[in-house]
């Protein structure tokens, strides 16, 4: 199932804590310039998978290849170079609370690029405008932001270095349905203009319908179903069936079919 143009290749991955095995011989490919949505029950290991791919959690077995670099064999310098090529949106935003919004967005630029303060200011404001914020918001501190704004700033910071891969950990959780819809659209637009690959962990059915090209379902530590939304609706796996054809999923499916 390895594909030629996959930017993330996860093969035979095992991750566990103590006696618990969370991911059990998992295989997953993320193709170039697609939005992949990863779903699964709470505790199925979605966030664990994401955190393992970006190297925050150790793995017991298996290989992970991101943009052609094998994480296990990469040297320190290769890893650092790779980390510049991806951006991560954490679930709670993880903004630096002692820096202003603008400084938060500039932080990766300041550390990694040798550019003038003027260009950095212009780029930070450009990124903020791209995610739908105003220059005035740039002077605020993270504690003064609403939930939706925090997510937008975190997205702007993730995009600061024009990454090739964007990891999103539940980007729409904690947002009202309208903001969540806007956010999905924003991710879709940005992905199309910037041509990036998006790896999105989510619970939000709407996001899966509106934003994702492909969906991977995690259950029992493995990917039990993979494919576009139509494939999900045809899947026979009990959890997938309940999720996509249950009360909430079913309504969306009907709406999708009728349009």
């Amino acid at each position: 199932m390895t594909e030629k143009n996959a930017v993330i290749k996860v093969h035979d991955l095992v991750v566990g804590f103590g006696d618990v095995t969370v991911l059990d011989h998992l295989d997953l490919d993320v193709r170039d310039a697609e939005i992949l949505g990863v779903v699964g029950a709470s505790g199925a290991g979605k966030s664990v998978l994401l955190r393992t791919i970006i190297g925050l959690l150790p793995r017991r077995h298996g290989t992970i290849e991101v943009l052609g670099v094998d994480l296990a064999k990469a040297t320190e310098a290769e890893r650092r170079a790779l980390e510049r090529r991806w951006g991560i949106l954490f679930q709670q935003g993880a903004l630096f609370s002692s820096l202003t919004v603008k400084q938060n967005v500039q932080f990766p630029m300041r550390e990694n690029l040798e550019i003038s303060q003027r260009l950095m200011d212009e780029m930070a404001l450009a990124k903020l405008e791209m995610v739908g914020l105003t220059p005035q918001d740039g002077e605020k501190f993270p504690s003064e932001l609403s939930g939706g704004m925090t997510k937008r700033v975190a997205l702007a910071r993730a995009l600061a270095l024009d990454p090739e891969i964007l990891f999103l950990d539940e980007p729409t959780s904690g947002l009202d349905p309208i903001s969540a819809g806007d956010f999905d659209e924003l991710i879709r637009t940005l992905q199309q203009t910037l041509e990036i690959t998006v790896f999105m962990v989510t619970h939000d059915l709407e996001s899966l319908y509106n934003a994702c090209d492909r969906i991977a379902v995690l259950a029992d530590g493995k990917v039990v179903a993979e494919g576009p939304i139509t494939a999900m609706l045809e899947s026979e796996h009990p959890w997938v069936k309940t999720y996509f054809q249950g009360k909430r999923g079913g309504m969306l499916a009907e709406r999708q079919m009728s349009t």
Partner: protein
Amino acid sequence: MGEALLTHKLVGERLELAAGGSWTASHAGELEALVDRVTGEAPKAKDVSIDMAGVHEFDTFGAWLLERLTRQWTASGKEAVVVGLPEHDRGLLKEMNGVNREPPPKPQLGNPVVSFLASVGRAGADFGHNLVVFSEMLGSVGMALARVIVRPREYRLTSTVHQFDRVAWQAVPIILLITFLIGAIISQQGIFHFRKFGAELYSVDLVGILVLREIGVLIVAIMVAGRSGSSYTAELGAMKMREEIDALRTMGFDPIEVLILPRILVLVIALPVLTFLGSMSALYGGGLVAWLYGGISPDIYISRLTEAISLTHFKVGMIKAPFMGLVIGIVACAEGLRVKGSAESLGIQTTNSVVESIFLVIVLDGLFAIFFASIGM
């Protein structure tokens, strides 16, 4: 990168630019310098055309610099044409076309003299404000205590025992060690200097009176302020940041009664206990040094000690201890509740808590000294 990012050629009154290579974040520094240089050529030419066909990598940094270049030309009334940009990169340039249209908000820079005076004034006002906050905390703790005395069943005994374990019991080893060393040092210095006029024995008076009246309680209070006061502030501050205190309040609990009263009462009880243990340890350390360094045998040390000190000296130290515990607790809890959203403010309040409580402990010690002197203790 052998490829030139941007080359320019003047053809008549038309400046022809040819772009190439990677117009991306990693080349943004070089690119910016080139773009600025080309803008400097503006007076020589009437219009400009930019050929982007040679560019094989293009991101928002490149797009913005291209936009900045054309924007600067059109601003000076000249024409700028971009040609040869691949179809899929046009969206990015269009996106950039919309941004940074309104000037960024200007940071407010005041007169340095005025801002200096303002900061002095603010510091003074803060000091006054601190006193108000501390009295307010003292008042609400008093109220909570009164409520608990009326309805003793509502007092949080488990929390008190847990805090006592942390603040008093776990502090015993370090307090014993530090006061032991302090006692030993005072004794050594006393013997060393008194020996010059043959009065080594008076070093025992020195150790006894100093330790029981002042040093014992002060060292313990400073240790507790650094050890437990800071942890109270950090704990309450983190709870404030995570809205735990608001949650308590909405469930109908008074945070003062649930969180703060047990903590402060524990300090009020723990400080006399620790002071007693600390003073004994200091006297022991002093005795050991007197024996090993000064040749004063333990028997003589003890008999000299019973002559030199009286119960009054002991009482002076012990009376001060609970008040110092109260001051440390009030300052630590008040500062903890003043933490705002950021990690930085947690750090600032914790520092303030330790500095202010040590300062107030020493001021209080001075006031007690005046008080005891005037009543002849």
